[in-house]
């Protein structure tokens, strides 16, 4: 039986892990220590708890064996394993990001960061703050300025797979909304205009208000510039 070289890793809370050298070398940090001959005794990792370290080791094991020429693991299988692996709660995910960074495991860092990025991708700034407990430290004026400067980034509707309710609206009413008016005039509307940033109940209110404005215009009465019309110019604020 050939003896496989092993290294010993010690987590911040004193847990000991014996790991094959090749697996441990997935971490560039540990690889460096091994190559510098500093790995004879247990390598202390004061920044990583036992729980997280065991996950990192699991990842490294899986990814080392796949680069082994004897292994028949396909890319799809590995991806599937990764998806399963990364299905952890947010706190663990953040700990994994920090561990992957500290231990310099590039694949794990990419995987964890991409996972968090995917959570951010489909959300509005408000939703991002809520999901990740981020404090909004803008003053209302500052926030409005940043919004305005970057209005172009909000303009395109993102994927329309979040549309739950579709509302059939008369074109004259839809044109009350500048955003939609532009889309219609440029013939860039399909059968359903996705309004990703507006929820159903808000959209209902907006449509109600549009109706009133159109009716008011038709009856030649003074259009009311209420708070609702502010809503109409910038449905994103809703």
């Amino acid at each position: 039986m050939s003896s496989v070289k092993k290294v010993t890793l010690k987590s911040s809370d004193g847990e000991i892990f014996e790991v094959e050298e090749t697996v441990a070398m997935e971490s560039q940090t540990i690889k460096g220590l091994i190559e510098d001959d500093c790995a004879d005794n247990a390598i202390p990792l004061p920044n990583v708890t036992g729980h997280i370290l065991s996950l990192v080791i699991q990842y490294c094991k899986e990814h080392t064996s796949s680069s082994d020429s004897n292994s028949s693991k396909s890319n799809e299988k590995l991806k599937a394993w990764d998806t399963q692996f990364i299905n952890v709660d947010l706190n663990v995910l953040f700990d994994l990001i920090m561990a992957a960074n500290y231990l310099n495991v590039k694949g794990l860092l990419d995987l964890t960061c991409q996972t968090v990025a995917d959570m951010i991708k489909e959300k509005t700034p408000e939703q991002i703050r809520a999901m990740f407990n981020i404090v909004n430290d803008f003053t209302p004026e500052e926030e409005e300025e940043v919004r305005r400067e970057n209005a172009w980034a909000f303009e395109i509707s993102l994927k329309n797979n979040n549309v739950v309710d579709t509302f059939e609206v008369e074109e004259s009413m839809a044109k009350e909304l500048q955003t939609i008016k532009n889309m219609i005039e440029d013939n860039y509307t399909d059968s359903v205009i996705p309004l990703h940033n507006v929820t159903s109940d808000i959209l209902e209110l907006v449509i109600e208000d549009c109706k009133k404005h159109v009716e008011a215009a038709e009856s030649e009465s003074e259009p009311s510039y209420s708070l609702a019309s502010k809503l109409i110019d910038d449905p994103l604020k809703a």
Partner: protein
Amino acid sequence: MSLDNLPDGLLLEILLHLPLQTVFQCKCVSNRWCSLISTPYFTHRYVSHLHTNLQPFTLLFECKDDQSITRVLATNSEESKLKSLAAYVHRQSEHLWLEASCNDLLLWRAKADEEPSPMNVYYVINPITRQCIALPPITLPYPRSWIQAGLICSYDYNKKQLSYSVVLIPYFHDKLREFKVYILSSNTREWSESMVLCPDPEGFELTHFAFCAVPYKGLLFWCSNSGRLLGIDPYNTRCCRSFEQPIGWELDKETDCFGVCRGCLRICQISMFYTRFSSILRIWELKDYDNEGGGKWYLEHEVSVNQLVSKKSTWLTEHVQQKYPLPLVLAFHPNDGDILYLAIELKVLLCNLRSKTVEVFCDIPHDPDTWNDKCNIINFVFPSWPTPIPFAPLQSGT
């Protein structure tokens, strides 16, 4: 545990994985996120992280609409990133002429009710962020098609400064060794007259329907119909670069296309040498360009137009191979040296010169307007990071 607890370096790693628009939306999350995203380092990392060669690009070209008004259309505009850009550019072309481009900035000129108009106003606009600078008006007694315009720009991310120059060349007949140009640079923000000195003693002949000026290595290059290039330095018009036409260039046939591909200047000509063999399409690339005067044309492609076939459409094969009219050459691909965009009937074609195939790329509502007026075709590559126009207010009414 919140994302606020992660150090900036790790927050940055996460944000690198987001699409461009989402990154800019994230500026609105908090002061910390906004500052992080606005650093030059972030831009640098973000741009390196993307595969810039995979960025979508579109051809912006002028076309008369049903009311005979010249508007700007974009090819393959159904792509999600390009949709908004195409719509915006189309809207702007209602009251602006598209003149030139440099990277992701476009130079426009206000349409006037009568031509020549007393005052010409030019704008530098980023069509992604909609930021816009209006240049001071200039009085030039020439109609729009008699003025060649060029834009060159560069952004310093560390100083957060945009430098740009606009060069206007009023049309002149014959070959001239010295001719007048008007230049505006961002450091003066004023128009000034300058005399260009052509290094070639034979002079330079400006073509009436010239291609857009091509910004390249700090110079603005124009191409004459005889295949000669002139590169003007907006900061020093007495020191220009010139290149003779490539060997094999047909002197009595005009330039069919001029642009940049894979970082090199390219020029294309379809020969009019009608024999029983057919017209030959040739593309030359200027290689070994350096600032000390180096640069030589190399023949990259030589294809018989009647050898081009379409694998998908026999109609197309027949049309392309017929001797007259020849397909119109629109543009090169920014990264792929084998691709050329052509137009025939009301279709833009993608031609692969290596496999000698053509396929329909997209339909266009009208013929690109090249015969009656200046037609500008601009290659627009969606940027990895939009060039900021600092302190520029957003254009109203967009």
